[in-house]
């Protein structure tokens, strides 16, 4: 455990220093962290054996919430935008979750997909609120009343994102070790026993679903502020697929997994676009095959081996 902590610390330091050495990486890594949050949300549900094929909708809701506040409500404070975007995504997660977490397996996956397609089309059609297919522009927020240049803000956003990875990552870690977090994988392995312990699988899942939506919303808000523009495409189903892929590739056993997967994919993507655009899908496909056959615990499994820690028994295998 201590070595995992040390290794996580090293990874964070590398993440923090990378843009100082290669400034062009800052944008890529900001987006990687943003998608990492959403993938972490997806990973929570994967622990309960539930695959959401619609989680990009919460990423989009977080992004649109940030954009809407900045553009239509004149709220410019960075902290307020971040918190409100998170709360709004959590709220949507709670409302949709009320009926979605009744379902399992393919029904859960498909219903999430269906709801996300509705959100996608609303984002494209409700011109007055969402700007339709043009999307919304996001102005540079202020920080405690200070106005910053876009460049300066991007730097702040990057380091705040890293702090959020640590802070939210720690909270999620605590949650997963708690009785409520353990109930999540218990739903997966034996829902009947869980109910016979007097625990409602439905409320355990609803909690997880709401948290996972909030995490995706945090990611979406970061992305919106970094890119400066939100589009309906954020909610498109291929983005949801990408999040599942990121979570599986990174590994769902630890908090670090989805972020590892996300950084890996974004870096590969950036390199591939520069050198061999058509090779991108091939690289991702091969990487996924390698993970599925040789690293059942994802990139996080590699991480554990590096830290000399054997895969602990208590965590779900995927």
């Amino acid at each position, binding site marked *: 455990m201590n070595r995992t902590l040390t290794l996580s610390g090293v990874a964070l330091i590398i993440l923090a220093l990378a843009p100082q050495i290669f400034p062009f990486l800052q944008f890529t890594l900001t987006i990687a962290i943003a998608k990492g949050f959403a993938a972490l949300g997806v990973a929570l549900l994967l622990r309960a054996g539930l695959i959401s094929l619609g989680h990009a909708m919460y990423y989009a809701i977080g992004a649109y919430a940030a954009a809407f506040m900045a553009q239509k409500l004149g709220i410019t404070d960075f902290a307020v935008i971040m918190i409100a975007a998170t709360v709004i995504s959590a709220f949507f997660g709670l409302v949709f979750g009320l009926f979605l977490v009744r379902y399992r397996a393919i029904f859960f996956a498909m219903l999430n997909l269906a709801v996300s397609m509705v959100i996608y089309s609303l984002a494209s059609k409700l011109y007055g609120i969402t700007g339709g297919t043009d999307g919304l522009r996001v102005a540079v927020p202020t920080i405690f009343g200070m106005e910053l240049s876009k460049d300066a803000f991007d730097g702040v956003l990057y380091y705040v994102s890293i702090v959020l990875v640590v802070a939210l990552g720690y909270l999620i870690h605590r949650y997963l070790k708690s*009785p409520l977090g353990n109930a999540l994988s218990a739903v997966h392995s034996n829902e009947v*026993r869980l109910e016979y*312990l007097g625990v409602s699988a439905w409320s355990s899942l609803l909690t997880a679903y709401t948290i996972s939506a909030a995490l995706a919303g945090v990611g979406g808000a970061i992305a919106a502020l970094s890119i400066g523009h939100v589009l309906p495409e954020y909610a498109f189903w291929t983005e949801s697929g990408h999040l599942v892929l990121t979570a599986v590739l990174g590994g769902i056993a630890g908090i670090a997994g989805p972020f590892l997967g996300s950084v890996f994919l974004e870096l590969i993507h950036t390199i591939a676009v520069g050198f061999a655009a058509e090779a991108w899908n091939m690289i991702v496909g091969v990487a996924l095959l390698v993970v599925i056959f040789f690293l059942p615990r994802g990139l996080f499994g590699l991480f554990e081996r590096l830290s000399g820690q054997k895969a602990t028994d208590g965590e779900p295998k995927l």
Partner: protein
Amino acid sequence: MSEVLLKAENLEVAFGGVKAADGVNLTIDKGEFVAIIGPNGSGKTTFLNLCTGYIRPVSGHVWLGDQEITRMAPRQIARRGIARAFQIPQLFTDHNVIENVMLAIASREGIWQAFTALDRPKYRAEAMELLELLNLGDYAETMAGTLPEGLRKLADVTVAMALRPQLLLLDEPTSGVSALERFPLMDTLMKAMKARGVTALFVEHDMEIVENYADRVVVWNAGTVMAEGTPAEVMKDPRVLENVVGIV
């Protein structure tokens, strides 16, 4: 005056044409150790399903103490004090044995603990004590999914007991255990239940076990209670000899 803990009245349920419960009436007093015996398919497991809300009766009622629990969900009934060990053990296979028990302990205190660890000294000590009482101390760290069949049933009982139920329902605790191991297993269970003051209802098809361990026997046949009494009384009943002992 004995105190009634569980009372079932006229329970009826049918699957297709099969009447799995055909007017079941049964009461269990506090402190009793009651056995249900009867041929395969006579509705013993169905009765436990009805008492715990897993299936709902077409008609009839179930009371726990003075509270009616008919048609409640399993988790509501569990919270009111009925715990169950299953004919096919139901464990969290991705957790180890002691975590299974600690989850039961935690759920007793309310599962809404999101930031305190499940694996905490207080829970671990209580779980370990219970596991040792049931001779499972050596298997605390074994993954529940990899336990041998016989131990899995015992672990299932341990999880149920960790809920500190008023009433414990055991569905064929000795099935799948070799004839030689049945008596030691029952000794272990009895010792644990006596130590915890649990009232229990257990389904058993071995008449010898029933004679040795039950205060009272309820004989099941075709979805209904055919006879009941002390083991000695029931064994004198010709219908029981013909329908139950003859078959099983």
